[in-house]
């Protein structure tokens, strides 16, 4: 035991000396991470948020933007509830950031007992807005527009199957919004991840879906599926011939934000450092190229207090949305 203790004291002494030396040198520089940064993803491996996090991590490494690496950690539990709770418990920690999707808003509303208020989190930057389109299989020749779609759904009623990525997720909210708007009821089947939904549409196990462009684009190019309507403000460059819902007189516009946020009570200096870092990444050629290819909207950089404002507007909108369609319409029970 004695030898061990001695050894440990010796190590501590060496470590202390070295760290003092380092500290003196770094004192006047601005804040930068002192240990690897946990890059929490509130979704599973392979999904959109995961891809974004891993791309950003790779870019940070390639461009040597951070003195310490970013380490992606997936915490998909409870529709992101676990990730949110984890960040809340890490309050004041400057070495954790979170990549979000819209479950950042919806999960705390739907899971009342979670006890997390996303407004308390430290906003860093919004990297992109993801868009949604309504897709059907290309073989459905008599469905060519939103009108013919609504007619077809109404004639089939509950036996019309809509696939999605899970109750409480963005597309289930959009589906519920459409049900309310057009006065029909469909059967909503949850799948794990947008890729699986896309496959089930092509395999005709479901009749229609609300997918992101990234998930359907290849099948669209191969002539296997077709978009009917986009839920954006204006027509996207990639889909110039697809009308927006607004043009057709249907007031549905919906986006999914992909933003970076810190835990509550992150220090001002750290927040500033992360904002700068992600701004550099946002403006990088690689990121902008990724946005174009993935059908993401990356035209406006929103950071810090502006992002906080964006979040609080979005949270309010989601509260109203969920209240108007009813939580039961989303969970299905």
């Amino acid at each position, binding site marked *: 035991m004695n030898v061990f203790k001695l050894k440990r004291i010796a190590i501590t002494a060496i470590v202390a000396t070295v760290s003092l030396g380092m500290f003196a040198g770094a004192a006047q520089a601005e804040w930068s991470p002192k240990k690897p940064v946990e890059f929490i993803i509130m979704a*599973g*491996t392979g999904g959109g948020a995961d891809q974004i996090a891993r791309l950003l991590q790779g870019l940070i490494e390639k461009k040597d933007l951070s003195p310490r690496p970013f380490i992606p950690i997936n915490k998909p539990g409870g529709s992101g509830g676990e990730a949110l709770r984890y960040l809340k418990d890490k309050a004041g920690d400057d070495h954790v950031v979170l990549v979000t999707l819209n479950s950042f808003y919806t999960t705390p509303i739907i899971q009342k007992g979670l006890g997390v208020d996303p407004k308390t989190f430290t906003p860093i930057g919004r990297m992109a807005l993801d868009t949604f389109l309504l897709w059907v299989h290309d073989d459905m020749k008599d469905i060519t527009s939103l009108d013919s779609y609504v007619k077809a759904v109404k004639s089939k009623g509950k036996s019309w199957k809509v696939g999605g990525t899970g*109750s409480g997720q963005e597309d289930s909210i959009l589906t519920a919004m459409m049900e309310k708007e057009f006065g029909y009821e469909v*059967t909503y089947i949850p799948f794990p991840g947008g*890729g699986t939904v896309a*496959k089930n549409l092509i*395999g005709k196990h479901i009749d229609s879906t609300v997918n992101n462009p990234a998930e359907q*684009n290849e099948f669209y190019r191969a002539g296997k599926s077709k978009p009917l309507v986009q839920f954006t403000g204006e027509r996207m460059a990639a889909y110039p011939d697809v009308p927006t819902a607004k043009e057709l007189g249907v007031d549905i516009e919906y986006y999914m934000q992909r933003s970076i946020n810190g835990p509550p009570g992150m220090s001002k200096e750290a927040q500033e450092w992360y904002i700068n870092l992600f701004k550099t990444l946002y403006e990088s050629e690689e990121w902008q190229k990724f946005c174009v290819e993935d059908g993401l909207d990356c035209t406006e950089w929103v950071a810090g207090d502006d992002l906080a404002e964006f979040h609080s507007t979005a949270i309010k909108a989601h509260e109203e949305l969920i209240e108007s369609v009813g939580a039961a319409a989303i969970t*299905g029970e």
Partner: protein
Amino acid sequence: MGEILGLLGAGLLQALEPLNFSMIVLGVILGLLVGALPGLGSVNGVAILLPITFLVPPTAAIMFLAAIYYGAMYGGAISSITLGIPGASTAVATVFDGRPLAVSGKADKALTAAAVASFIGGTISVILFTLFAPPLAEFALKFGPAEEFSLMVLAFATFIGLGGDDIPKTIFSILIGLVLAAIGLDIISGQPRMIFGDISGFMHGINFLVLAIGIYGIGEMLWTLEQTKGQVTAHNVKLSLKEIIKDIKDVKEYIGTTTLGSVLGYFVGTLPAAGATPASLMSYGLAKTFSKEPETFGTGNVSGVAAPEAANNAASTGSMLPMITLGIPGSPTTAILLGGMIIWGLRPGPLLFTEHPDFVWGLIGSLYVANLVTLVINLLFIPLFVKILTLPFTILAPTIYILCVVGGYAPTQTMHDVWLMFLFGVVGYLLRKLDYPVAPAVLAIVLGPLAERSMRQSLISSQGDPLIFFERPISLTCILIAVALILVPVYQKYKRRKNANKSEPEAES
């Protein structure tokens, strides 16, 4: 056909280019190491090394990552056999016979069988991949939720014979595995489920590895300690090149089950959502069902190592098919590979084959090469792995405990899971002393989530009509085979009981 051979030839040449070839060798070695560590599997290896691939061209990058994936599949068998801990869910079935073989001093035989069977499995599946990729992609599309569920029923049926003689205890073990798998989020309703004491660690559910490492790592270690009263003698293994060559020649003992496992593994692997784990379990179950001496399975039958290893390597190749042709990952690892391809600016999907043929064929070519490289490296390393077993127990035991702890921590990076793992280890040990079989619980926790989800998806889409499982031809076929598979061992048992009515199962401990 000629066209395919031409493309394949070009792909092979591409894989043999100096940069690509060295990436493959490096990938295989890294994969082997990552796979051999309990808790870390190909998912971790591929995810961690993904950023490195931004530095090389996409073709070299995908070859590197595919080689890691491949190497890790072999690596999983190493920890299953030498340490008795499945490194990944794909290697669970390898423990059943690999561990008993190692304990009885035949680790080299088991390791060689694993390497050779993996090679055969890999090669058969790459050939199938080369010849039948497009039609199989079409077939994979036919698999909806109802088919997935009946496939799960089939998977359960294949290992019905794995339990002990005590039927209530075996069923209990399966059921508790299924219930543990239900903890976490219910994806159908989006509600958190069975979150005990509002502890957020339960939200991500109970990872299969937590249970497997607990039971096979800690539980097995405690069991060994008790059996040997702490006086574990180191295994005396002498190993020469001659021995290994002799071991390789034993391949005729298990070539049949290996071929069957390879083909089965490939087909199951190509189905999105299924992946290598059910494939290896089904292959093990089938090998046992059709064996002439099923009672030797679980006590150290070489076929019991070869069958699952052939299947999991075949399935890992198979699971690249839906990734490449449909853009849908067949396993968590391919999910990350897919992300990588998107980051490199390649869009997997029905058009990839025609728009980027050199990428696709380069990847296929690299699979052939990686397969051979892995076999060679593996056989060279076998003497080293066998050495692990000669360590004194008082050094091996704490090392295994430490590997269990860090392996339980690494996948989710929470201490919550490490505590659960410890709890499962101790409870598993106590249950094992009373002849509760533990393997069925581990298998059930792997297949449980998929079984429940696909069943409920099917019922929602049929609006609550359970006939959906019998109306669809593929689904009905799977269920009929499952019924047959359940009846075969029951009949065999009945026959054996009739023959040897007097012999009674012995009490343990």
